[in-house]
C-alpha cells in the first residue's frame, strides 16, 4: 500500500438512495470511510445492509445521490471493470466457480482482467492461499472443500485482484461456529494489514474487536455511526438498544 498523506476519504457517500420499484431500500444515506478504516454494518434483516455494500461496487447501482471512491465519482459512466479492480467483494454463499479448481478460481480474474501472465497470477494466488491457510488445497475443486475452506478461497480470490477496499457481505452467515472462527481470524489479519474494509455481519465479538466504527441501519436509513465501545455500551438510539438486547439475548 502506498502511503497517502491526504485526508481525502476512501469512500464518500452523499444522499444516496436505492429503490426497488416502490420499495425504498436505501434512504438518503450519508457516510465517509477513511483510508484503512474498518467499518462494520449492523442492523436487522431487511434494513438495507447488503444493498448498501452492493452499491459500493455498483453490483446494485444507486438511483439518487453521489458515491465517491478514492476521489473518483462513481456513476453509470464509470468503467465497472476499473471499479471492481479497486473494490473486492466476498459473498455469504462464496460464489466460487465449481467448474474451476481453487487455483483457477483465483487466477481467472487477474489473467483476464489485469492481463497478468499465468506464472505471475499463480504466484500471487499461492501467496494469498497461503495467507488464508489453505495452500495445499490449490488443485482441488470447490465441491471437495468444507464451507469454511470455500469461504477462505473466496477471500483469497478477491485478494488476488489486490483491491484497495474489501466488502464482506455476511461472510460467516452460512458457516458453522468452528469455521466462523477460522474465517474471522483471517479477517482480523486483513484488518491488521490496513486494507479498507466494509463488512456486513452478525458477529458481535468480531465487530467489537476490529471495527473502527459501527454503522447501524434500520429501514434503509443509517440510524447511527459510532465507535464500537460506545455502540455496544451506550447506543444513542432506542432502536439500536432494542437491536442489541435482541442480539445479546442469544
Amino acid at each position, binding site marked *: 500500500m502506498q502511503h497517502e498523506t491526504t485526508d481525502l476519504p476512501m469512500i464518500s457517500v452523499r444522499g444516496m438512495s436505492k429503490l426497488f420499484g416502490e420499495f425504498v431500500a436505501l434512504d438518503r444515506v450519508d457516510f465517509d470511510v477513511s483510508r484503512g478504516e474498518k467499518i462494520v454494518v449492523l442492523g436487522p434483516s431487511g434494513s438495507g445492509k447488503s444493498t448498501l455494500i452492493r452499491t459500493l461496487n455498483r453490483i446494485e447501482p444507486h438511483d439518487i445521490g453521489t458515491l465517491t471512491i478514492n476521489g473518483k465519482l462513481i456513476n453509470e459512466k464509470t468503467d465497472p471493470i476499473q471499479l*471492481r479492480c479497486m473494490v473486492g467483494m466476498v459473498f455469504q*454463499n462464496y460464489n466460487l466457480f465449481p*467448474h474451476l479448481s481453487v487455483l483457477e478460481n483465483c487466477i481467472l*480474474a487477474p489473467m483476464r*482482467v489485469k492481463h497478468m501472465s499465468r506464472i505471475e497470477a499463480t504466484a500471487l494466488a499461492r501467496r494469498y492461499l497461503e495467507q488464508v491457510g489453505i495452500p495445499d488445497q490449490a488443485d482441488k475443486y470447490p465441491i471437495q472443500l468444507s464451507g469454511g475452506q470455500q469461504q477462505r478461497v473466496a477471500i483469497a480470490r478477491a485478494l488476488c*485482484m489486490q483491491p484497495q477496499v474489501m466488502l464482506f457481505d455476511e461472510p460467516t452467515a452460512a458457516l458453522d461456529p468452528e469455521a466462523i472462527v477460522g474465517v474471522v481470524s483471517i479477517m482480523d489479519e486483513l484488518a491488521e494489514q490496513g486494507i479498507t474494509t466494509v463488512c456486513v455481519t452478525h458477529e458481535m465479538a468480531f465487530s467489537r474487536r476490529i471495527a473502527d466504527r459501527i454503522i447501524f441501519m434500520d429501514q434503509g436509513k443509517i440510524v447511527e455511526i459510532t465507535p464500537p465501545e460506545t455502540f455496544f455500551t451506550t447506543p444513542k438510539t432506542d432502536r439500536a438498544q432494542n437491536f442489541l438486547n435482541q442480539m445479546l439475548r442469544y
Partner: protein
Amino acid sequence: MISFFSFLPLTRHFRLAAALAGILVATAGLHGLAQAEPVPSFVQNGVLTICTNPTLPPMTFVKGQDVSHPEGFDIDVAQALANRWQARLSVITMDFTGLFPSLSAQRCGLVMSGIIRTPAREKSFDAVTYQDTALVVVGRKGTPSLTSMDELAGKSIAVESGTSYITRLGLINDTLVAAGKPPMIIQQYPTEEQVVQQVLIGRVFAFVSQDVELFFRMRQLGDKLHVLITPDIPDYHHFAIYLRPNAADQTQLQSAISALETDGTLSALRTKWSVTDQSTKNGAANVSASSMFDWNAFFSALTSTAFLHGALITLSVALISHIIAITISVPIAIVLNSPQKSVLKIVLEGYVSLFRAAPTLLQLLFIWNAVPQFFPIFREQWFTPFLATILALSVNESAYQVEINRAALSAVDPGQELGASALGLSRRDIYWRVIFPQAFRIALPPTIKRIYQFAKNYLSCVCYFTAGTSGCDTDTGCTHFCFY
C-alpha cells in the same frame, strides 16, 4: 415432386408415351444431303452432341451428385464415336420426355439413352441398334427356373413403381385370369434397390427388370440372384441410337457401330459396364437353400452401398443441423432468459412455440415448396434437397434446443454471475468463462439424447423424403422406410 428429376422414375421405361410424343413433335426433315465425307451431318463444328436421360444404369446414369456429368455404357459408346469422327463429345442431360423433341429441334445430334428400338419411333426417326436387351424375371438363387410366364400365377412380384413393367405385368395378368388362373400379386417399391432387397429377404417370389440393369447390379450382389425366365416380348430386343431421319447419316452411324463391334471396342465396354451376363448360371443347383434364413441376405442389405449412403446422409444431416441449431439457439436462449421485456423477446417466443408445435414434415415441405416462392434465390440449383433438409431441421431443432439451453442457463446459480462481475470480469468473460462451461455440462446429456433420438427415429423418414425429392437413383439413394 418439384425437382427437375423427380418425375424420372415414372417415365424411365415408358417408351410408348415418349414415342407418341416423338411422332407429334417430329419435323419432316427427310431430305438430308448425301455427302461422301466420312463425318455424318449431325456432327457440327467438330462437336458430337448427344441427349440423354441419365437414369438407367449401366447405360446412362449419374454417380454421386453431379447431374451434368452422366456416365455409363452409352456415354462411352458416344465417346468412341466422337473419337472416330475426331469430334468433341458434348452431353446434354434432360427429362425423358424432352429427349425426342430436343432431337427434332436439333439441340442434339443423337439420342443415346438406353432406349428400346420400336417401329413406332422409327416412323419419325432413324435408329441404329448397338446393344441387345431383354426383359427378365429374377428370383433368389436356388429358385428353380421357369419355362413359361404362366407359372408365375398367384406369385408375388416386385417392380419399381412408375415403370412400364407394371403395364406389361397387367397384360400378362389379363391372360392369366382369362385362362382361369389366379393373377400375379404385383408389389411396387420406390427404388430398384428396394425391389431387389424384397427378393433377397424372400418377401416376394421374383422381380421384373431389364437385363442390363440386372447384370450391372449382379456385380454388387454376386450370385445371390438368377434369371428365372426371359419372356419373349415382341419389340423388346434392342437398344438403339436415334437420329433425325437421314439415310446417309444412318448408314455412316451403322458402319461406325459395326467398326466398333469389329475392333472389340464395344465388347470391352460391355465388360467394363457389365452389360452382358457375367454371373454363373447355376441357380437351380442349390434348391434347399431357398427356404432357410439367409444371414447373408440380411447383412448384405445392411451393408449395401445404398443403405450405407443413406446412413451417412442420416448422420450428417443429424450432426450438421444440430451444430447449426445449437449455434442459433444459444443467443435466443440468452435473450429469452433475460428479465427485460422487449419486442425481440416476444418474436423469439413466437418462433420457439411455432417450430416446436408444427409437425416436422410440414416444416420440411414448407421450406422445400413454399420458401422458393417467397425468395427467388432458393429456386436456384444450389438449393438441393439436402440443403433444404439441413435448413428445415436446423430451424426446427433450434426451437427445441432453445428450451434445453434455457433450462441449463437457469440451472446455473445466479450467484455465479454476481461473483464473476464482482471480480471485474467482462460480460463476455462472464458468459464464456463462467456461465457457459457450467450450462454446457447441464445441457450436454439432454442435447446428446436429442441428437440420438432425432437421428434414430425421425431421420429415417426424413432421409427417405430427401431421396424421393431428389429423384435419387437406385445407386445413390436411401433404402430408408418411414415407419410411422
